[in-house]
């Protein structure tokens, strides 16, 4: 099966999201160390991990859902969103009890990840060649 333009767009989005997560891990580790020592490093790496999972989950659900019938697409996209919010709530519950963890560093890592992924998605949709009819 040859990849169509939509597939290429989603693959490119996943690749850029992974690069963004790596950048957040590197920059966040340095900034977190200066802000809160070991607690900052742990928080920055957790934020980067959250960035990988959440940045790719929406893209994957829409990409894979697009290959399913309409009700499967609906279930996968909304189910993926629900799973993401539940996972995030569980993560927050676990982290709030952690002692060696810097909350502000984690917050800024997550916000950088969310805004960075938005920038990537917007840029790809605005500049990408989106097929009107798939192959």
């Amino acid at each position, binding site marked *: 099966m040859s990849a169509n333009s939509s597939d290429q767009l989603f693959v490119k989005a996943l690749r850029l999201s992974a690069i963004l997560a790596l950048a957040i891990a590197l920059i966040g580790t340095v900034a977190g160390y200066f802000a809160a020592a070991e607690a900052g490093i742990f928080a920055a790496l957790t934020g980067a991990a959250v960035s990988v999972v959440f940045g790719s989950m929406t893209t994957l659900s829409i990409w894979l859902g697009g290959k399913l019938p309409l009700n499967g697409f609906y279930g996968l996209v909304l189910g993926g969103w629900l799973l993401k919010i539940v996972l995030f709530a569980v993560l*927050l519950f676990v982290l709030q009890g952690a002692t060696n963890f810097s909350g502000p560093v984690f917050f800024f890592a997550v916000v950088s990840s969310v805004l960075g992924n938005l920038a990537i998605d917007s840029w790809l949709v605005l500049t990408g060649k989106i097929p009107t009819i798939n192959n």
Partner: protein
Amino acid sequence: MDAVNIAELSGNIAVVGYGLAAIGPGIGVGLVVSKTIESIARQPELAGRLQVTMWLGIAFTEALALIGLATPFIFA
């Protein structure tokens, strides 16, 4: 609980914040997806283009939820 102390509640106010952070984007994502499905049902040949546009709509809407859920880390 008597009438004088009816407003006396215990717990963490951040929990209310989690709910507020999820309800708006939840409605937003529902609207984005329902309108996309409606559009695909009208014009199935545009499904690919509509799904990619929906992806952007969902990304912006869910950003609100994720930022809202993470705010207790700076306001706590």
